[in-house]
């Protein structure tokens, strides 16, 4: 089966056609969302989870480290944002910075302890750490508000100097989140294809060989862990702002499992855009399928299991194969060449 390294571009462009299309879709979302009968807040949720998922895939797909406890970092980000608003200052940039830094520190500490491992041990350790964070969020109710979580988190206004934008309006917050998402996409696209990203992929394919050609492998695993935690922190901060609350459930194993499923189903193992597709599919399942049946999550889980069995390349992988079949049908020689996506 194909992998991320099969679909790697050779150009050095900052902006690719896919990024342009994506930008257009994001910028016009408020219009077509209501046109298809969906609501504005959904756009915010989708943007936030895309940031989370893309950052997560740097670890999951690119570095090949399967973290089943990543909810801890989006949770830390959310709580940090809320606590900053409540105890330090009502500030957008302060809150987001606090979210990113707090999640980054959590990732730094946990990462230092897990990055010497891989495979099953790594996965189980991340589950255990996720549970530790989740449990702490419930028990430390003096700080975190316990099972109820932090409530009444304000949405600080966006102060641009020449204008002050109230983010209590969902459309305004959506554009802010979409902006953060675009920056994330552009940054991650470059990282994945820069030397750092390539070395991550080498580490995924063979830690032994990567070491024998001179790389301090666990540094790279650690760095990928921290990077994905930082982005999860950003997502968490936005999440706390959007919901105006932060609660332990986001750190539960259940939620951590959801991000794994989203990313795999979308095709994160083989494509940069896999996580984006995966998030879209999840929310379609939740909000479209969910209207028809209460058991939508069960079907989603079954779909995941079937995909792991037969199509672990996910949707992006399936699309890639379909495209290859069409292009070879056009008469082009189907040579075994690695083509850029």
């Amino acid at each position, binding site marked *: 089966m194909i992998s991320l390294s099969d679909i790697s571009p050779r150009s*050095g462009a900052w902006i690719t056609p896919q990024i342009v299309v994506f930008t257009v879709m994001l910028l016009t979302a408020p219009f077509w969302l209501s046109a298809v009968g969906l609501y504005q807040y959904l756009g915010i949720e989708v943007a936030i989870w895309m940031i989370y998922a893309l950052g997560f895939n740097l670890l999951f797909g690119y570095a090949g480290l399967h973290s089943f406890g990543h909810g801890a970092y989006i949770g830390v980000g959310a709580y940090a944002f809320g606590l900053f608003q409540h105890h330090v200052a009502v500030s957008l940039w302060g809150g987001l910075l606090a979210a990113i830094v707090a999640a980054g520190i959590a990732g730094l500490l946990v990462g230092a302890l897990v990055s010497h491992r891989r495979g099953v041990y790594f996965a189980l350790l991340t589950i255990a750490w996720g549970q530790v964070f989740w449990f702490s969020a419930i028990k430390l109710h003096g700080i975190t508000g316990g099972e109820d979580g932090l409530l009444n988190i304000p949405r600080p206004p966006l102060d641009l100097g020449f204008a002050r934008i109230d983010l209590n309006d969902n459309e305004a917050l959506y554009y802010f989140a979409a902006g953060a998402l675009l920056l994330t996409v552009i940054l991650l696209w470059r990282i994945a294809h820069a030397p750092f990203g390539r070395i991550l992929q080498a580490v995924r394919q063979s830690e032994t060989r990567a070491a024998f050609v*001179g790389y301090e*492998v666990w540094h790279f695993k650690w760095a990928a862990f921290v990077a994905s935690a930082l982005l999860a922190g950003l997502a968490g901060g936005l999440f706390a702002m959007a919901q105006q609350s932060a609660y332990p459930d986001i750190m539960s194993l259940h939620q951590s499992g959801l991000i794994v499923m989203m990313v795999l189903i979308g095709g994160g193992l083989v494509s940069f855009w896999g996580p984006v597709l995966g998030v879209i599919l999840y929310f379609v399942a939740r909000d479209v399928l969910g209207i028809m049946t209460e058991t939508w999550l069960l079907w989603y889980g079954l779909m995941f299991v079937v995909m792991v069995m037969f199509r672990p390349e996910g949707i992006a992988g399936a699309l890639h194969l379909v495209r290859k079949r069409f292009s070879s049908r056009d008469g082009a020689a189907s040579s075994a060449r690695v083509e850029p996506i």
Partner: protein
Amino acid sequence: MALFEVRHIHKRFGAQVVLEDISLDFEDGQVSGIMGPNGAGKTTCFHVLTGFYKPDRGTIRFDGTDITGQSPQSLARKGISRSFQMMTLFDQSAVIENVMVALPEFRARQKHLVSAVFSDRTLVDAAREILDQVGLLGREWEPSASLPYGDRRALEIGVALAARPRILFLDEPTSGLGSEATRNLAALIAGLRERYTIVMIEHDMQFLFDLADEISVVHWGQVIARGAPAALRQNKWVERSALGELA
């Protein structure tokens, strides 16, 4: 002083002593061979020399510096490179990507988060030059997993070469190759000897005897004989360990 000096290496696993008082010298510019029957300890010896295992006792010196017990990545950065018998390629990547990631120029940029790689001509040219040395030029973008076995062996060596070593350790490079591929490989290594000091473990006695300037025989965890191929043919220890029959 030899380029690579091994002195009194001792290695055990649990109660079993695998290497006992191994001392070797690899001279700069030579092709050195290590041979011996299976289970004799030559692979363990290789692993110790290339940093995969730490010796329990003994020292290893490279170009005068003590490198005993250093990690493989540290050794690679100093110019010690190896290929593997069980092929250890980046199997989801293309041929050129396998080689490129091993280049020291690439490694120097490991912290770069945003620079593009394949639009950098110097890196691409350096990678292609390595591929040329191992006969894979023109196949840069083929997926490494789909190469025929002999070409994968060449790529396996290519990745080791890309690290620009001063000394190259090859672990049973002819493993699994048919006679024609073996001849090609012999030509490849003969071509490399100008530029690299090479140390090879081999089972294929003829291959080793044709290429090596000096061969060490490892048996029962010790070096039981050492010398030029011609001299070894007469060595009584070599005969005793039944290797002589095959030489």
